[in-house]
């Protein structure tokens, strides 16, 4: 007998429509890998500048007082270029994927994801800048990791849910870093570099591999 209802396909259709209409699902794993590589490159340049890696003493407060303004300026530029490179390369891969899948890049799901990321990151950024203005540099690296991790956990409701685990990873690293103050750059490279690459590779493997 031919039945007009195919319950399994109907349920799959419902699930797909719910996901596509409420989450930004074009986020590409390659974006994570690209951002991670940029972060590692940035951390490498920074470590060359401050030459602290081998000595194991990447304490920002020390650097700020001993070497003066020029170094801060260099580090600032390294950080800015790293961020821009990571952002642009992450954007490119996600843009390509959304084009391939035919899902809109700038729909309401994108805006929702954007605001839910921007609020914790923006507030964290202001907090850390104010801390540096007050001469407190020790908690900058763990602060970045913790606020970024919280932003990702929050964002996981609006994009691929697995990003939550990347967030947990960043938070754990940030918390450890609170008690290993001298190793900010290493923790930073671990979180923004290695974790991004591992996460990106796993997501690519799971969703995009042909």
């Amino acid at each position, binding site marked *: 007998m031919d039945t*007009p*209802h195919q319950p399994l396909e*109907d349920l799959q*259709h*419902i699930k797909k429509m*719910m996901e596509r*209409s*409420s989450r930004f699902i074009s986020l590409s794993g390659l974006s994570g890998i690209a951002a991670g590589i940029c972060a590692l490159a940035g951390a490498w340049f920074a470590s060359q500048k401050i030459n602290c890696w081998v000595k194991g003493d990447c304490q920002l407060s020390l650097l700020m007082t001993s070497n003066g303004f020029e170094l801060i300026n260099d580090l600032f530029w390294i950080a800015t270029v790293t961020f821009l490179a990571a952002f642009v390369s992450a954007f490119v891969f996600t843009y390509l994927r959304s084009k391939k899948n035919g899902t809109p890049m700038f*729909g309401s799901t994108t805006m929702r994801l954007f605001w839910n990321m921007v609020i914790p990151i923006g507030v964290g950024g202001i907090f850390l800048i104010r801390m540096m203005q007050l001469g407190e540099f020790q908690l900058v690296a763990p602060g970045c990791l913790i606020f970024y991790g919280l932003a990702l956990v929050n964002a996981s409701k609006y994009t691929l849910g697995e990003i939550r685990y990347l967030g947990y990873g960043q938070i754990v690293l940030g918390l450890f870093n609170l008690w290993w103050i001298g190793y900010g750059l290493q923790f930073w490279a671990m979180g923004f570099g290695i974790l991004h690459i591992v996460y990106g590779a796993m997501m690519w493997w799971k969703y995009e591999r042909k």
Partner: protein
Amino acid sequence: MKNPIENLNKIFDSRIRLGIMSALMVNDEVSFNELKELLDITDGNLASHLKTLEESEFIKFQKGFIGRKTNTTYSITKNGEKEFKLHLDALTKMIGSVK
């Protein structure tokens, strides 16, 4: 035992209407254009399906403006939510009975 097929709603036979309801279940409101992109259908086709759902009072709409363009957004009614959940339950039970 009652046959779960009896609980299936005829109105949800169409994949497109099923898609509209799914999107409205998980979003407070969805605009006409977003639904169009989501389902990848023409204006006329979408409008006629929306009308069917509206007439059964499963969804309601709100007309607004973005600049000068009209922007119609749709949301689910209490009744629509109830009916959709019944339909979902029936589908789930049908799969269960096959196993």
